[in-house]
Structures are given as structure tokens and as C-alpha cells.
């Protein structure tokens, strides 16, 4: 495992994670479908998980991998609440397009 990490280099892991994170950010900013936005947020969180695991191996320290479990559990709880809100929105608006939510302005 260490040899692979040394061969690839920690830098490339950081670039990959940053790339995935940016894909997630642009997904949240530019897509208008709520489910796709949720998926983009998940990509952001998973990019961080990847980075944490890479750093954990790099430092030979298990704490980073334990943190990934926390972050996965939290992400699951978060998305469960998000989907519940989405169901409520769907019942009132008959759709999940974010652009329909325009009642609050000023």
C-alpha cells in the first residue's frame, strides 16, 4: 500500500480529490434539479472521504479512516433529512425543480 502511494504521490491524490470536489461544487451551482444537486453534494463529501483516506495512509495514522466513518454516517443522516424535505416540496409543487421555489424575495 505504501509503495503504491509513493509511486503515485500524495500530490496526485490531492489533485483528484480537488477535481471531484469542484465537480460537486459546479453541480450544486449550475444544476436545477434537486436530486442532481443532492448527488453533487454527495460527490463533494466523497471527494473529502477519498482525501482523508489518502492522507491517513500517507501519515500512517488510523484517525483519518475513523473520521471517514463519521463523515459517511453524517452524510447519510443529512441526505435522509434532505429527501424528506424534498418529498414535502414535491407534494406542494408537483415537481422538484429548484426554480419553482420563488415565494421568498425582497
Amino acid at each position, binding site marked *: 500500500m505504501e509503495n503504491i502511494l509513493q509511486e503515485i504521490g*500524495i500530490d496526485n491524490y*490531492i489533485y483528484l*480529490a480537488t477535481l471531484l*470536489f469542484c465537480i*460537486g*461544487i459546479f453541480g*450544486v451551482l449550475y444544476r436545477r434539479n*434537486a436530486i442532481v*444537486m443532492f448527488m453533487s*453534494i454527495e460527490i*463533494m*463529501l466523497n*471527494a*473529502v472521504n477519498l*482525501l*482523508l483516506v489518502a*492522507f491517513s495512509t*500517507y*501519515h500512517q*495514522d488510523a*484517525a*483519518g479512516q*475513523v*473520521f471517514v466513518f*463519521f*463523515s459517511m454516517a*453524517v452524510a447519510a*443522516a*443529512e441526505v435522509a*433529512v*434532505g429527501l*424528506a*424535505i*424534498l418529498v*414535502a*416540496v414535491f*407534494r*406542494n*409543487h408537483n415537481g422538484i425543480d*429548484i426554480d419553482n*421555489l*420563488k*415565494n*421568498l*424575495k*425582497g
Partner: protein
Amino acid sequence: MDILIAIAGLGIICLVAEIFNLRKAIVPVTVAGLLGVLAFVGAKIFSKNPDILGLGFDKEPYINMIINDKFALSFSALFILLTAFLVALSPEFHKNHKAKLSDFVAIKLFLLTGAIAMISFSNLSMFFLGIEILSISLYILAASNPKDVKSNEAGMKYFLMGAFASGIILFGIALIYGATGSFNMLTINAMDREALPSWYNIGAVMLTIGLMFKIAAVPFHFWAPDVYEGSPALSTATMSTLAKVAAMASFFKLITTLNPHLPGFLTTINIIAVLSMTIGNLMALKQTNVKRMLGFSGISHAGYMLLAFQFRDLTFAQGNLFYYAFAYTLAGIAAFAVVLYVSSSKGNEEVYSFNGLGKTKPLMAAVLTCALLSMAGIPIFSGFFGKMFLFNQVLDKGRMILVVFAVINSIIAVGYYFKLILAMYSKESIENKEDNNTVPFVYSAVAVIAILINIGIGLCPELILQLMR
């Protein structure tokens, strides 16, 4: 750790009490339990040995996760007090949904555990868990009126923004872990800043951006007014008092412990503080919805609290921040108790609904006036002293220009606070005179107690300031 266990246990008791048909006991038991925990925290603050119960929670290995210094304990006490007020307000607010009462109370208690975890963290994983528990509870509270289109929208916007901010915070934590190889704040704080790779500073900046979202400071504030307006009024009260101060205090603790050596970092925070004050106040001037107005006012108060980063002596800065937060949140609770009454009796929170309140409900109008004067920073109310201590601290550091901006902004703020006060005292009620619905007892009790504490700490500010020393 024992505080967290006690409060989480209280939340579970709430849920179990509903199963055993003890609905009437939920709120009294919870408020009594919270006051008990508050007394326990107070004893911890003042005693030499904080491990009162002898359970060993404050020793190794727990000390790596939770640190019970005076800063954390004082803010925990403030959060517990605020939650006790918010829980006391809930049975009257949810009187049409009695079956859901235990859920709302339990969610508020879990929110409190999150707030305490994120203020007393000594490990970044505890901080992350705390901020997520706080945020997830708030998403539920914001969307807690599923039939209402506005509440849906508020919940959805808050969720998307909050989850986005959490992602950025998490990325910052990962970079800091990568740079230091540890999540422990004490280890990180002891490291040599110059020897760390550049990711460390990038991580600190990303944490800053994520927390700016949570406290709604200006470039990242756009969600706040919409969410404040759309959420049910009690959830708005929770967000604008408890959640804002929790995020602000942990932001302060995080940045002072991480201590990133970046040129221009503090300058950026100052610019953000000035922008938050100015834009928050200017936008609040033209609002007609009181919840939305208080949302913008909350943005400007976040700006004032960001001034605390200009300090010579950390302990003094912590004390000043705590005092300001105490004054602001108690005024907020008092104001929202009145807003809850008006919105339940008139059905909305527009400014014209407050017309004539000074004649029909003089007590409520007086409390709201005091709360708004405290937020505006008029003497004898603690808001004035909070501002004074913060401005003094900034002057002491030699940042004259910041204080000039802050004082100008305090003057602008008087404008919109007096719009509401004028509506209450100088305009006639638009409805017929004989609306004889009495003010529910809890609303007036909470409003009066909160404003009395506010005036009390204004009269003897040393009481609060010395907690940190």
C-alpha cells in the same frame, strides 16, 4: 462530556414520555432538567476541580475530544438557558399540533447537544459532529411546517446551503489533517506554523468560508433572510439566537486555535465584518416583514461579533464576545416572544400587524421596545455595553477606522428599530378595538424574564465578564 450525556438523555426521555402518554409532563420536565444542567454547569465554572461528579469524564482519554475550559462552559451555560426559553415557548406555539410536541422539544434538545459539542471541542471530529448535529436539527425545524409552501422553500434552501457549507468545512478539515497528521487541536496548535505545508492555510481558509455561511456573514448571507422569513417563527427564533451564536463562538475558538499565519487574513475578516454590518443594516431599512428584518439585523450583529477578532489579550476578547452574544441573544428571545404572540394572533409578521400594540398590549409593546433598544445599543440595556466593550477592544488594538464604521452602522440600525417602535406607539390598530384575546402566560413570562436578565447584565456587566478570567 457529562453535560452532553445529560442533555441527550433528556431528549430521549422526551421521546419516551410521548410513548407512555405523559405529554403534559414533557415541557415542565425538560425545562426543569435544563435548569438543573444549567446549575451543574454553573458549579463547574466556579469550582476549582471541574470534575464534580468524580466520573472521570474530564480526564484522559476524554480530554482529547472535549475540553471544558471557561470559554466552553460559559457558552454552554448560555446555550442551555436559551434552549430552556425556547422549549418553554414551544407548547403554546405548537398548540394546534399537540401530537408533534415531543418531537419538536427533542429536536431542540439534540440541537443543544450539537451546539455544546461544537463549542467545547478539542478535536476536529467532535467539531464536525457538533456542527452537523446542529445543522441537521435546524433543517428539520426550518421545514417543520410541511403543508406551508414558504416553510418548504426555507427548509430546502437552508438544506442546500448548509450541506454545501458542510462540504467546504469537511474539505478544510481534511486539508488540515493532511498538513498536520492529527485532528487534535492541542497538537495542531503546538506545531510550528512555518514548517507546515501550504495546504494548512488553504484548509483554514476553507473552514472560514464554511463557517461564514453558517453565521451568515456578508458575501455568504444570501440564504439567511429567505430562510428566516419562511421558517415557522419559533424556528426563526432558534436560528437567529442559538444557532448564530454557537457558530460564531466556535468560529472564534477555531480560528484562534488554528492560528493560520496568512498575510491579510485578519484584514479580510475586518472587511467582511464591515460589509456585514453595512449591508445587513441597509437592507433591513426597507423590510416590511419583521422576521426578515430581524434576519438582516442578525447579519449586522454577526458583523459586530466579527470585530472580536481584533484583540490584544485573548481572554478579554473571549469575555467581550461572550457578553455581546449574551446581550444579543436575550434581546432576541424577548423580541421573538412578542413576535410569536403577534404572529399567532394576527396571522402574519408584517410591520402593520404591530400597529397600536402599545395601547392594546402595553406589556408586550414595552418588552419589544426594550429588546429593540438593546439591539440598537441604547444605554442601560446590555446591548450598549456589549458594543462598548467590543469597540474599546478594537480601539485598544489601534483599528480606529473599524470603530468609525461600526458606530455609523449603529446609527443606521436605530432607523429600522424605531420604525417598529413607532408603529407600536404612534399608529392606530387597523383592526377593531375589541380584540380581547389575552397574551398567553408563557409568552409574557419568557419575554419579561429574558428582558430582565438583559437589563440585569447591563447594570452589572462584571458579573458576565469575570466568568472568563
